[in-house]
């Protein structure tokens, strides 16, 4: 074969071999580990889209230039960026490249027997003793001692030679740790990649089905998600919250009826720290809030009838429980369009107490609940239930509605209903002559709570846990077990023999001296005890 043709593949092979060797080197592994750490630093210092999209949006407004740079570099989603994947992949390859030969070597070493040695006095620890038993018995006695001390022993009794080693667990542990780390990474990527996480807001007495469009945009699916949701139906029977009198939350729980598409059902109580697994999904208690049942009618025509999910916007330092709850009813079919903004005070007593004292009181229980409402007319810009854009609207009326009341929302007066808990000066006027056919009436028949559940599917959680346990289990021997080798040789000396013991430890050498000394004593005793004063004694 001509030169250039032959050299092309061989130089390719050489460079592949070089890359492979470089990847296998510990130096590369260390640098990759430190790069991984640096990449994670980026992810923790710069706001991340998956964790806090609002902060990313705010950053884009405040620092348009850097935002562009970070966007281009993928810094806003560091853990999903190509360079993070690249570092992880290289670390992977480096790990595998290092682990495969090491695992092979370990299997070879496990099969091989300890090798006999000739020149024992060359070892760092070496002792020579005269003993009373002949070489063959002395050697088998020494072998028994070493076996009792959990050494792997190779005995050549006629030759009076023993080879023993201990501490293979160190390498086994180290390999288990590294392979487990690899399994962990793979399991995390598969689990997060094929799964999904979202939140379901369900009002007491209502139901919800696990399907894409029921998540209201609050859904994160993995990169390899197949698109199939579990179809689980969740019916919320009841929601319970317990607070201390000081307003410190103690417990939240949702009483659920779960049913799978295959017909199986289950009653479940989902509480903080006590998720429920059903039909392949995990259900967590995530949040809660108030949802008044509101009925809006024009004359006899029902325009809206159902729960209004309320939320809160709390400034830092404020106790959210002392704040009112806000929500909107949007009537887009009317011309002009109408929005009713409501502000709920669940506990009238606590609210008026805080007005009187100036000290915010937590409103944790429904106690004569009432709402302030504002009616806006004009053009609705969106259908969001959490906000109202009033740029193309004007406010036409406002008023107050207690639970069980009916009000005339057009005029802002009360059609029916009273409450002892609300001061008469605030309760509003009674409508003169009732409502006409063109007026908008609103009723507040009931106040319920809603629960927010986090729904997630992650198929590899048990794998991740198993790998994590293996990481810890492997780490301990990898760091603490030391590999030790000991040899014993006995050669005839009169009726007894001269016993030589040599050995060394690859790790924790400071501890080996002590162990070696007691080993020598035990071996000497097993060989019949010292015949006379030891002819020579060398210790390290």
């Amino acid at each position, binding site marked *: 074969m001509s030169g250039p043709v032959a050299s092309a593949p061989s130089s390719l092979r050489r460079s592949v071999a070089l890359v492979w060797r470089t990847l296998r080197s510990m130096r590369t592994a*260390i640098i990759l580990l430190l790069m991984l*750490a640096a990449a*994670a630093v980026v992810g923790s210092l710069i706001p991340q889209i998956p964790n806090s999209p609002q902060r990313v949006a705010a950053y884009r407004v405040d620092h348009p230039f850097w935002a562009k740079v970070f966007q281009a570099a993928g810094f806003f989603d560091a853990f999903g960026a190509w360079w993070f994947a690249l570092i992880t992949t290289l670390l992977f390859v480096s790990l595998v490249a290092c682990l495969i030969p090491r695992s092979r070597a370990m299997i070879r070493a496990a099969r091989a027997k300890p090798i006999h040695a000739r020149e024992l006095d060359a070892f760092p620890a070496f002792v020579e003793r005269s003993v009373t038993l002949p070489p063959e018995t002395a050697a088998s006695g020494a072998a028994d001692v070493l076996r009792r001390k959990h050494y792997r022993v190779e005995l050549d009794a006629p030759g009076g030679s023993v080879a023993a080693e201990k501490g293979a667990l160190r390498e086994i542990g180290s390999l288990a740790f590294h392979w487990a780390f690899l399994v962990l990474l793979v399991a995390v990527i598969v689990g997060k990649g094929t799964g999904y996480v979202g939140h379901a807001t369900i009002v007491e007495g209502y139901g919800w089905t696990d399907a894409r469009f029921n998540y209201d945009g609050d859904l994160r699916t993995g990169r390899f998600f197949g698109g199939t949701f579990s179809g689980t139906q969740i019916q919320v029977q009841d929601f319970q919250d317990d607070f201390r009198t000081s307003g*410190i*939350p*103690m*417990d*939240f729980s949702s009483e659920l009826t779960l049913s799978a598409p295959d017909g199986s059902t289950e009653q479940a109580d989902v509480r903080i720290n006590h998720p429920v697994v059903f039909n392949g999904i995990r259900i*967590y208690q995530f949040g809660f809030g108030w949802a008044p049942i509101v009925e809006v009618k024009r004359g006899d025509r029902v325009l809206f009838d159902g729960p209004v999910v309320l939320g809160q916007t709390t400034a830092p330092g404020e106790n959210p429980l002392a704040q009112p709850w806000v929500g909107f009813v949007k009537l887009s079919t009317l011309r002009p369009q109408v929005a009713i903004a409501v502000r709920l005070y669940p506990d009238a007593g606590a609210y008026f107490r805080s007005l009187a004292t100036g000290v915010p009181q937590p409103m944790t229980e429904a106690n004569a609940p009432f709402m302030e409402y504002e009616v806006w007319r004009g053009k609705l810009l969106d259908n969001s239930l959490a906000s109202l854009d009033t740029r193309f609207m004007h406010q036409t009326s406002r008023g107050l509605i207690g639970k069980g009341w009916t009000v005339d929302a057009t005029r802002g007066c009360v059609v029916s209903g009273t409450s002892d808990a609300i001061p008469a000066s605030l309760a509003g006027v009674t409508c003169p002559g009732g409502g006409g056919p063109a007026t908008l009436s609103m009723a507040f028949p009931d106040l319920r709570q809603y629960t927010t559940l986090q729904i997630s599917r992650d198929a590899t959680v048990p794998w991740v846990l198993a790998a994590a346990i293996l990481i810890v289990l492997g*780490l301990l021997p990898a760091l603490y077990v030391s590999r030790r080798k000991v040899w014993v040789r006995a050669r005839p000396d009169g009726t007894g023999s001269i016993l030589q013991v040599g050995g060394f430890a690859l790790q924790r050498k400071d501890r080996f001296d002590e162990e070696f000394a007691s080993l020598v004593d035990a071996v000497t005793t097993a060989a019949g005890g010292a015949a006379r004063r030891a002819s020579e004694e060398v210790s390290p």
Partner: protein
Amino acid sequence: MTTASWARLSSDAFNLALFAYVAAMVASFAYLAFRKERLHTVATVIGVLGLVANGVSIVTRGIAAGRTPWGNMYEYSSLITFLVVLGYLWLIEGRAKVRTIGGFVYGMAVLWMAMAVSFFYVGPTALMPALNSYWRQIHVTSMIVASSLLGIGCLLTIVYLIKAPAERRALERMRASTPPPIMGGAGVETSDPDAPPDYAGSADEPVGSATTSRKIGLPPSATLDALAYKFIRFGFPVWTFGVICGAIWAQQTWGRYWGWDPKETWSFITWVIFAGYLHARATAGWKGTRAAIVALVGFASLLVTYYAVNLWIAGLHSYAT
């Protein structure tokens, strides 16, 4: 006793411990400088007193709050200080017989306690339901123990980084002033008459301890390095275990074992750096100074995990402030 008086007792004991650690730090540094045995005794007595006060503060805090006293940053810091000083007195002074680095340890204890009381003080209260899990106990306990161990390890590494170059300089000076034996000189058998007294004391080990008078000084760098490695080797698996317990707790509470929350991210960064240290220590060319620097970077990362995340970076763990 009422809750309030337990809380007051806890605060008083905390302040007493802080003052005791300051005094012990001064006495320890004085011992290092003036080498009077009595100063060491004084430092030890005051240090033990501080440790007892620190322990009393933690226990009474637990009584006042009606739960285990590791529920927020203030309490973590107090406990870490306790464990660091305990670890020093028991393992370093007691077991390893290294007695000259106390000033650094007490200095760290003082910093840690001062941080706790100035940035993180909160009264003893009950915990949010999200924190009510036995995994919390295991997770927090392991993280505190691991931080204490890694903290001591890094303190030893700092002293190592002070000591190692001094030793190298001393060795070079000795080589320059006395030719090696083969060239007719007496080698290490003769001590350098021109060497400053502190050099003879601080670098006695590697340059022939037989002839240089054995004076008190920082321990030899090899001892410091070996001790630092022991502590980090102990702390690393505990940190690993703690992070895993945290993940289990997160799975239970937040529905995901890992979400790159800043605290999680930084605990991972710290883990990765210390993993790098353990690898570096077993690699030729990285052993010694380079590995020591990796350990210090790891410790800086640990401090960020503990403090900066709570102070400046918002996340799910922010309840702890």
